[in-house]
């Protein structure tokens, strides 16, 4: 995975790109909160949430297919949980299957819940994918800092992002070196596992040594236990307007979802 994949769209010029990262982070969290608290039968609310996130994607000028692709990466995780629901929920049976003496019953309630869980997960991931594609990770970390996420977590993420690519290149070199010394598919599974183990070990040791050099570099420039950085977020009027519009839309959807429940 190269940086071209991760960092491809964050430097756009659309309204979404120019919004304050604090607003974008909060708006995404609010969206996920609303999506996950919408009751299973409130399909119109899910539809409106989809319209809302699609509108945001279109406004960002990032190709929607790209955001969709990114959102699919996490779907298997939600899918695994959702797939078990039709079989485990009590309720009216719609279909029964008896393989080898077991009895698997699919219930209507289970199917409904499965669909709702998938919809919630996917909508949430779409919003998160848009946030990540349209914001540089660095801005996101600044936003988290402003929202009082602990400094240790932020530095950890910052270092992880900085050295992800360095580590990736190192791993790539190890892989090339291995490939250069082994013709064909190589030995059996045991042999390949051993080689892989060696590679992971040597990557770990290299990273450990690098961390000591980085720490020395930080000390050399006055580091004394706490990382400072220049504050550079500036809240603009358009951030207030965008925040207001987003909140209104989400509130309307919440009301609709709750109203649907009463009927």
């Amino acid at each position: 995975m190269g940086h071209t994949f991760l960092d491809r769209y964050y430097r756009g010029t659309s309204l979404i790109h120019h919004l304050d990262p604090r607003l974008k982070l909060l708006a995404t969290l609010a969206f996920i909160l609303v999506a996950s608290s919408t009751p299973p039968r409130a399909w119109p609310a899910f539809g409106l949430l989809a319209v809302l996130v699609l509108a945001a994607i279109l406004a960002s000028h990032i190709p929607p297919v790209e955001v969709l692709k990114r959102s699919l990466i996490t779907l298997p995780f939600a899918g695994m949980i959702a797939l078990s629901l039709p079989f485990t929920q009590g309720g009216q049976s719609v279909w029964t299957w008896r393989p080898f003496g077991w009895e698997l019953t699919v219930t209507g309630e289970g199917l409904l819940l499965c669909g709702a869980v998938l919809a919630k997960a996917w909508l949430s991931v779409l919003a998160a994918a848009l946030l990540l594609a349209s914001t540089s990770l660095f801005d996101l970390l600044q936003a988290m800092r402003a929202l009082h996420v602990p400094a240790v977590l932020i530095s950890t993420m910052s270092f992880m992002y900085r050295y992800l690519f360095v580590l990736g290149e190192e791993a790539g070199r190890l892989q090339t070196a291995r490939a250069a010394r082994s013709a064909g598919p190589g030995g059996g599974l045991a042999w390949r596992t051993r080689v892989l183990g060696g590679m992971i070990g040597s990557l770990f040791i290299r990273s450990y040594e690098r961390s000591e050099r980085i720490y020395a570099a930080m000390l050399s420039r006055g580091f004394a236990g706490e990382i400072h950085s220049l504050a550079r977020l500036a809240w603009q009027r358009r951030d207030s307007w965008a925040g207001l519009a987003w909140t209104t839309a989400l509130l309307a959807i919440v009301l609709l979802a709750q109203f649907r429940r009463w009927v």
Partner: protein
Amino acid sequence: MTQPIICVEHLTFSYPDSRRALTDVNLAVHAGEKVAIVGPNGAGKSTLFLHLNGILSGQGRVEIAGLAPVDKALRTVRAKVGLVFQDPDDQLFSPTVLDDVAFGPLHLGCPPSEVRDRVARALAAVGMTGCEALMPHHMSLGERKRIAIATVLAMNSEVLVLDEPSAGLDPRARRNLLGLLKTLPQTMLVASHDMRLVWDLCPRTVILDGGRLVADGPTAELLRDAALMEQHGLESP
């Protein structure tokens, strides 16, 4: 004669695994001098550098402009000595160029407006104006080396200590870097295997081998002494 800006006397250091890295090293460098430190791998060049700003401390005396890098003076000494590591990926640990160049001045306690000022001046000095928002992993090795130098220029360091500045650079990037180093007025200590760089940049050379300082003199003289160079695993340019 004025007081030397770098003063190392009888410095001996062993790593915790009892590997002896430096033995009785003596070195005095005056303000404005450009001194090359040459020697085979493992001679102790990097270890010596880490003593200059108090990251390591051995037996003997180390003073920078009359200050020992301990206790209260540590911060001042670290501001005076700008250490540029060999691998810019070790030196540049922040997500953007701005943060990396600002790191030194911020941690030395400069107010934000002055930090921005220093960042702009340091980037201009290395010919990288306007690169504040770039991320290190999007830049070439030559560019990252320049930014690494900017990170210490922003600290207004009086002494620049460079570990293998030309390693891994292609000829053009190497030439550009050499041109940059020549224009910088700071006192410089340069560890290098690049004898042509040593020849072009540093009028004075010291040879370190096996943790001992074995020669100290004019570059032209030392580098022409083929027997001496051979003996310490080096070669004349």
